[in-house]
């Protein structure tokens, strides 16, 4: 493995911090499913208040993970960083595998 430049390590850590929040992950999941949603739709789908959704979407917007666009009297959000979905899927797949492994071990112990 080659040495990662310091700036890239810092930026990568910032990106993981940005994604290290359940509300933001739920918002991204909703956008990944739907493609494009309004603030109110995102708040409803993630079970949070509009003010809270607005706060987290602003953070994601500032880091160029999502973009907002005014359409009529409303604002629509969509994911613009194409790496986000595959990154989340990679982490989720690893966790699913771990759960399955733990379940198998639990099953083996119960059978023994």
């Amino acid at each position, binding site marked *: 493995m080659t040495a990662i430049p310091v700036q890239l390590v810092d930026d990568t850590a910032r990106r993981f911090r940005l994604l290290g929040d359940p509300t933001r992950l739920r918002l991204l999941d909703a956008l990944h499913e739907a493609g494009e949603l*309004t*603030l*109110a739709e995102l708040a409803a789908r993630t079970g949070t*208040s*509009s*003010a*809270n*959704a*607005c*706060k*987290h*979407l*602003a*953070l994601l917007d500032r880091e160029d993970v999502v973009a*907002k666009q*005014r359409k009529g*009297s*409303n*604002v629509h959000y969509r994911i613009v960083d194409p790496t986000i979905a595959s990154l989340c899927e990679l982490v989720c797949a690893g966790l699913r595998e771990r759960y399955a492994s733990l379940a198998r071990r639990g099953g083996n112990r119960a059978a023994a």
Partner: protein
Amino acid sequence: MTARHLAALLLVGVLALAAGCGGADLSGAPPAPAAEPPAAEPPAAPDETAWTALLGELDLEPNQFVVEIDGSRDGSDLALTITVPQDGPREYTFSDGLYGAQAFAIVDGSWKRVDTADIRTEIAPLLSPGQSADVRLPVSDADSYRVLVPVEGFAAWADIS
């Protein structure tokens, strides 16, 4: 001196002490002026510590002037103008059709929400630096109000009498 004499002397002493501690004044001296009644307590100043705690509960970071809030009472509403400063860093998104504005007042010593705008349109308006918006926020009666506007995780506020 008999025991009865001693008891009588003690009784006289006790009565004299009682008179000196607010009992009947038998000295003939003019009565001392009555103590002033306690002045009415000034209205309690808004409790800034409680306000900061409230913003914490709402998961908002205090940033009072991230947007400017002007306004006055107009009938049963607060007539507000919300302005993004000209030197603001970017366009802001607000959380509902009333720009997320909420009114609070001190009730029984603590901050209580007193706006009555429970149902709000779901549009999320945007304001660019230098732009402003007029909002009418219905409220219940209070002597003065503190208007809170959440802006992308920050809390702006202003006091309105």
